[in-house]
């Protein structure tokens, strides 16, 4: 919402420094996103070079048919000679003059110069040159009155500040200059002008506009007014400049008046060319199935039965509250105008605007809820302006409405405000604040003003009204807690441990999107913002591999990335969202397996590996653990030798054996030996270890493979696997004989099961 300060001041005499106004509004009412200074630059006395002038003489330029040569009195005693390209004035006209040296809004500095051989000592201004209107067809002819030489800024709004206000959705009353003025008056405890248009009484015509409302739920009120002998003309300068500053394009008087009233009061209006209506009647109804209409923007709209329409006796003539129809649009030849000042129910407008993806200044206000009592002053203000600006006669009217909602009466305990806010506000002060906002005090109740009736319906809503006035005085306290947990859960602690371990192992953490282009899943967005962000991912690795590839392309070295995030598995009503950790780093199978072993180890868990297949991985260098997959990436996926893993955290954490129980490995020392077995090539090391453990029992405390050898000494199709073992008992020192017996048990078992032969040194 653009709120021109000059317009605001018409309703409330606010003179505090701009910074104070914006700060107070931002804290207590609605955020001021910024202040736009518009119009003629003020620096270096620039404004003094803009004056009121009176044209003394005006005749054709001797050397140019399309130019006028004028002598203009600008209050200096001696008139100035000015060359002008416009012809919409003559001697005696009061005009706006910029003197040489003046800087225009665009930054152009005027110079005294010769035009076709004649000196031009200034410029007679058109409205667009000082950003007061869009026209450049002629110069501005001012109303007579001000003396030549009067500073122009006293006559025209050459400079203005525009507050860029962002009211929240619950405050549609602030989508109007008068509404903002009402708020400012309350904030600064200042008088507020009466509602514009509200005071006009005068004659009400006898004629009736025929209006039929089929659906009072959706349209609680419809005021129609008929104006005859309308002259469509450009609006006067003040109106055009106000609309421009408020961010709307001036078109012509009738449409400009409807827009002006909307910005001033917040009630969107519409005007129809009455002569284009069939049957001369307004019908407010829902659309019929298959009905169509062409809106003002030239688009053919297919309507649905939920859409609320303004129709005549035969067809739709407007999408209620959203946009008018092309066929009944006001045009240059319009002479009879039907003005609509209605009230529409928000949800109806919202749904249609949503479905058609059509948002307008009007729909934006309706869908937030417009005060149904506002239609009357809006109609009055528009009537006043239409009669004044178009020369029209108001000839007929009608005000069709259901029972308008009563003002909400809310039970209110002022002590409740103190309890919620945490700072005390005396009861009388509370009621004084509320009164400034238009609330009335009852016995243990307050009566809500009509313009806040949707937002304030409960005691807590009234409390908020007090709170927003006192936000700066709210102290800093902490809850007096009666229950405290304040610890990370086991899973949260282990998660941190995994993150820290990976960082220690040289992996850098990355975040990639949860949405993928193509994952196999039930959870695909029917309307993604980009195909890359379509499906909830079922694995972290594809995005991680892409991140690695980007780093390779960027020339990074020692690339090692991990991500800890959710994957989403199809699982009925809602997906099964699981935390995974995945990593990619250079190096072969052994290296990445070492990483996974380390992750198990930091969790105090033992990892078991078995051969596995996975489409992203090398077919011969991939293993599965209880929690996921580890191996070398298939070089088709990522060029070079890369290790990768992806583990499910819940499964991984299930392996964690904590707290660890102490084992006495000090009192009775271990007997350490190296054993090497020759086995057929297809025997896997893990099988040997498992069998050795089974054979030797708990006294085989450690067994680790430290070498695998193939060659002549062991023969074709065979390999030698060397183990380092430690035999130890918690009860006694093992003798050499004990160790020899254990070794024999192992050798026998391995020999029997795998044909393994113990090599002797």
């Amino acid at each position, binding site marked *: 919402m653009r709120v021109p300060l000059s317009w605001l001041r018409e309703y409330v005499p606010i003179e505090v420094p701009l910074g104070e106004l914006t700060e107070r509004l931002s804290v207590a*009412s609605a*955020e001021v996103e*910024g202040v736009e200074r518009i119009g003629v630059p003020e620096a270096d006395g620039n404004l003094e070079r803009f004056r009121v002038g009176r044209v003394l003489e005006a005749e054709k330029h001797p050397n140019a048919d399309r130019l006028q040569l004028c002598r203009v009195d600008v209050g200096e005693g001696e008139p100035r000679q000015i060359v002008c390209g416009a012809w919409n004035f003559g001697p005696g006209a009061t005009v706006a003059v910029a003197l040489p040296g003046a800087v225009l809004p665009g930054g152009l500095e005027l110079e005294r110069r010769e035009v076709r051989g004649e000196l031009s000592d200034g410029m007679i201004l058109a409205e667009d040159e000082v950003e007061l209107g869009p026209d450049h067809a002629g110069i501005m002819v001012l109303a007579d009155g001000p003396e030549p030489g009067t500073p122009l800024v006293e006559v025209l709004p050459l400079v203005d500040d525009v507050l860029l206000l962002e009211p*929240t*959705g619950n*405050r549609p009353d602030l989508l109007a200059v008068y509404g903002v003025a009402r708020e400012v008056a309350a904030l600064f405890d200042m008088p507020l002008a009466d509602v514009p248009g509200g005071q006009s009484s005068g004659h009400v015509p006898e004629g009736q506009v025929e209006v039929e409302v089929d659906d009072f739920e959706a349209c609680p009120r419809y005021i129609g007014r008929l104006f005859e002998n309308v002259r469509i003309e450009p609006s006067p300068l003040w109106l055009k400049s106000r609309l421009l500053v408020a961010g709307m394009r001036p078109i012509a008087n009738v449409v400009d008046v409807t827009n002006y009233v909307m910005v001033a009061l917040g009630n969107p209006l519409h005007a129809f060319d009455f002569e284009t209506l069939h049957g001369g009647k307004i019908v407010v109804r829902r659309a019929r199935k298959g009905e169509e209409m062409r809106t003002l923007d030239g688009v053919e709209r297919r309507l649905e039965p939920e859409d609320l329409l303004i129709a005549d006796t035969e067809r739709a003539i407007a999408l209620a509250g959203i946009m008018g129809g092309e066929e009944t649009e006001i045009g240059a030849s319009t002479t009879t105008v039907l003005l609509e000042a209605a009230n529409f129910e928000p*949800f109806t407008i*919202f749904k249609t605007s*949503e479905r058609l993806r059509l948002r307008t200044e009007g729909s934006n206000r309706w*869908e*937030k809820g417009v005060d149904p009592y506002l239609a009357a002053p809006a109609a009055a203000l528009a009537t006043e302006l239409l009669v004044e600006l178009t020369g029209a006669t108001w000839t007929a009217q009608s005000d069709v409405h259901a029972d308008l909602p009563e003002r909400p009466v809310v039970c209110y305990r002022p002590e409740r405000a103190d*309890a*919620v*806010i*945490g700072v005390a506000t005396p009861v009388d002060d509370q009621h004084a604040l509320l009164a400034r906002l238009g609330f009335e005090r009852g016995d243990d109740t307050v009566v809500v003003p009509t313009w806040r009736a949707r937002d304030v319906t*409960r005691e*807590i809503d009234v*409390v*908020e009204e007090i*709170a927003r006035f006192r*936000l*700066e005085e*709210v102290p*800093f*306290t*902490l*809850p007096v*807690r*009666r*229950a*405290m*947990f*304040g610890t*990370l*859960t086991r899973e*949260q602690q282990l998660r941190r441990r995994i993150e820290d371990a990976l*960082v*220690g*192992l*040289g*992996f*850098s*953490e*990355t*975040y*990639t999107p949860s949405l993928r282009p193509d994952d196999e899943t039930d*959870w695909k967005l029917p*309307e993604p*913002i*980009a195909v890359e962000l379509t499906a909830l991912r079922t694995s972290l690795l594809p995005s991680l591999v892409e*991140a690695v590839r980007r*780093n390779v392309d*960027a020339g*990074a070295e*020692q690339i*090692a990335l991990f991500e800890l995030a959710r994957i*989403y598995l199809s699982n009925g009503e*809602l*997906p099964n*969202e699981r935390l995974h950790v995945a990593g990619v780093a250079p190096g072969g199978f052994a290296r990445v397996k070492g990483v996974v072993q380390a992750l198990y180890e930091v969790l105090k868990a033992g990892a078991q590996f078995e051969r596995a297949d996975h489409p992203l991985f090398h077919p011969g260098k991939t293993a599965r653990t209880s929690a996921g997959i580890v191996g070398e990436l298939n070089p088709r996926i990522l060029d070079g030798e890369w290790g990768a893993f992806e583990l499910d955290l819940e499964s991984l954490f299930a392996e964690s054996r904590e707290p660890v129980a102490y084992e006495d490995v000090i009192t009775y020392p271990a007997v350490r030996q190296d054993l090497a077995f020759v086995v057929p090539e297809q025997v896997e090391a893990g099988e040997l270890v498992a069998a050795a453990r089974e054979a030797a029992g708990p006294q085989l405390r450690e067994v680790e493979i430290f070498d695998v050898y193939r060659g002549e000494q062991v023969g074709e199709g065979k390999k030698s696997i060397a183990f380092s073992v430690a035999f130890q008992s918690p009860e006694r020192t093992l003798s050499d004989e004990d160790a020899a017996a254990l070794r024999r048990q192992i050798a026998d078992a391995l020999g029997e099961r795998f044909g393994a032969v113990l090599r002797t040194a």
Partner: protein
Amino acid sequence: MTENEATVAAVDWEAYEREASAAVAAASGPTELEDARVGYLGRKSELAQALRGVRDRESGMLLNGIRERLEAAVTQRERTLEGEELDRRLREEIVDVTLPGERLPLGHLHPITQVRRIVEDAFLGLGYEIRDDREVETLEYNFDKLAFAPTHPARSPRDTFFFDESHVLRTETSPSQIHALEEHEPPIYMVSIGRVYRRDAITATRYPIFHQFEGLAVDEGITLADLKGTLLHVMRALYGPERRIRFRTHFFPFTEPSIEPDVSCGICDGAGCRTCKHTGWIEMGGAGVVDPQVFENVGVDPERWSGFAFGCGLERAAQLRHDIPDIRLLWEGDLRVLRQF
């Protein structure tokens, strides 16, 4: 007088010891020391010879005393010389300490994770539990139970990712409020942290996926002032002890009163700069007092219990802490970026 007695008597042992001590002390290297030791303590030394012939206790004590003292002096001198030798050697072993150290592999936690931990720790210290809930939500939890009006813009597929008419990617972490309230009786002190989704085009300031932390405190007698104090604590944990905060009125469906907290700009300390758009303040998210409607939606008595809730973005916090100009940098996994943190 035997020969030996004569030898003992013939020597001025006081002078011998003085002479020997001086020789040991003067030895400037291992060779000289060994010469002195052999000369005065060795097998052929006068002392050794005299000791061999000694018969009387008095002479024995005298000579053994001399021997022990000289041996101690030799050992002492030996240590001194070794120490000096080591010092000399170490003085020569000079490296250029400005040469790089060995590059050990060390990774980096993502800035969002770092900020996440700061937030978690700040709230753990205040006695809050940390939780996260599902990202695919039903309309019931994402909107209805949080008292979103039927016309709230977030219900539009223009703002929110819909899978079908009843499932969305959660638009904020606020559904956690409902989950927490349904799971436990108050009092509740919890912070929920996780990914949320909005239908925004990817730009320098917006990314359709981001992270929020959402706090909820429900107890007897909770006030807006408690919210102010709590947020001050967390903002100071994130941005430093000098930070101030202010509240601006706002509107959210599930809080009343609703506010937006601003933290004083850490770059200009409130004077106004580019980062804070010349306001001196930086928006941190949304907050407010839990709306009684939310309590009623989950069967909690709003007359007995009161609470506050707040939600802030982790990306924004990471960007502010580290002065990261473009949110996309947090999502690209570029090691040139990640290795800075």
